[in-house]
Every structure is written in C-alpha cells, then in structure tokens.
C-alpha cells in the first residue's frame, strides 16, 4: 500500500518510510563504512536507489529485506573500506551478567528483578522507551548493527548473517553480548523506580 503510493509519487508515503527506517539504515551502514558522515551518505543513496527501483520490486522478499540489501550493496560500492573482517572470540571475557552478582560457585547472590509484566504495562512509558533506545545506540559495533537488524527490525539470524557477511554462529555471539547490555540497561531502569 505504502509502496503503491510511493510509485505514484506520494511524498507522504516517502516520509513514512524514511521516518520508519532511516535511522536503522544509518546504523547498519555504519558497520560497513568508517564514518558517521559516510553512513548518512550511504543511507541517502539507498533512498534514491529505492525510488529508482521501487517499480521493479516484486514483493518476493519483504520490503525490509530488500531495503537492507540495497543498503549493503551501496555500502560496498561506497568503497570507504572493504567489508571488515569481524573477529569474534567466543571465549573472550565479556560476561552477560556482572560477575559480582554471583557467588564463588556461580550461583545468583543478586537475582534478576522480574520485569516482563512491568515492562509491557509500561511500554508507552518514556523511561522504558528511552532506556531501550539509549542502550541500543550506545552498543559498540558490530553489536549495534546486529541488534538493530535482529531485534529492532526483526530480521532472521540467517538474513542478518547474509547482510553483514558473518556466520550465523558469530551473529549469535554478537547478539548475545548486545542483548545482555540492553537487558542490563532495562533492569537498571526498572530498578530505578518504574514501579
């Protein structure tokens, strides 16, 4: 529907798509190129490519997958640097939970504060929204690109691995570390007095 409107030159349809996806495009572009300015340029080029190509989009993949594929192709031709080789060391010490929360035997001394109900009840709460967005924005690369594609945009691990040129195993390792940080931030916000 939006794409049909875009095809007939509806500026509002363009604004909706840009408003929804541009920030995620910039994030993922930033994984491939070496500056924020270059990432912004790649995201802009992507929108021009969308306008040029939307009449050829056949809906075999989702619009989202198509959009991010264009972005990754534009990132590569931008040529700021070749797709970087991300080395992921699964044994490196980056624990999901602060070691101080376990005793010497590895059992919880400070167990998680349950927040599933609390969070869904407060989904519109500015505190939750801000905690999540800030946490994702502050993730280092490549966690930011992986969390953006997998959790913010909801692409599959297979799609994320293909877009970023990573193995699915490495996507999971990176996702694990990124999610752990977002979880810690949200728990911090919940403990900070949502209730």
């Amino acid at each position, binding site marked *: 529907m939006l794409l049909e409107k875009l095809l007939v030159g509806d500026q509002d349809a363009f604004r909706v798509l840009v*408003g929804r996806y541009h920030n995620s495009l910039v994030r993922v572009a930033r994984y491939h190129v070496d500056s924020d300015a270059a990432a912004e340029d790649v995201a802009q080029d992507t929108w021009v490519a969308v*306008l040029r190509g939307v009449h050829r989009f056949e809906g075999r993949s989702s619009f989202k997958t198509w959009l991010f594929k264009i972005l990754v192709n534009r990132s590569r031709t931008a040529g700021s640097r070749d797709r970087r080789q991300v080395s992921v060391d699964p044994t490196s010490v980056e624990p999901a939970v602060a070691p101080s929360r376990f005793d010497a035997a590895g059992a919880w001394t400070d*167990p998680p504060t349950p927040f599933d109900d609390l969070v869904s009840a407060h989904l519109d709460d500015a505190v939750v929204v801000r905690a999540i967005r800030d946490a994702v924005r502050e993730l280092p690369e490549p966690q930011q690109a992986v969390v953006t594609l997998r959790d913010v945009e909801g692409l599959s691990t297979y799609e994320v691995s293909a877009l970023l040129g990573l193995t699915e195993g490495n996507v999971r390792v990176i996702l694990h570390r990124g*999610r*752990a940080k977002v979880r810690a931030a949200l728990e911090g916000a919940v403990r900070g007095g949502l209730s």
Partner: protein
Amino acid sequence: MSVLTRDVSCREAVELVTDYLEGALSARERRSLERHLGKCDGCAGYLEQVRAVVVVTGAVGPEDLDPETMAGLVQLYEQYKADT
C-alpha cells in the same frame, strides 16, 4: 568438567540463553539448561527478562528521525522527482 556432563551453574546458564532462544543448543546442552531452569527461579527470571527485552526492543523500534534529517531527505525526494 564440561558443561555437558554436570549441572550448569547460574553464571554458565545465563551465557546459554541466546543460543537457547535461537534454537542453536545441542540436545544435550538444551536438556542441561532446561533442568537448571526448572529448579532455579533466578535463571528462569533471567530468561524471561531476555524474552521481554527482545519483544520490547522490536515494539519500541528505532528512534524518531530528527526534523532536519527528514527535511533533507524530503528535499532529496523532490529533487529526484524533478529530475525524472
């Protein structure tokens, strides 16, 4: 001793959560984790937290585009239309 042959500790269990949710654990690892989750409220709570984070991160979405960037992109769009 390996994680596979004895009960996992809480500290180890939290490191298996993403692979568990992604369906990437071996059958043995999965059984071992599920046995632990069945008797550990802390780790069961941790798993629920991570599930909630995934749902909420998707629901919250990316931050709103700032008006200046939006204006620049709309200009790009008008330029494209004028040129074609």
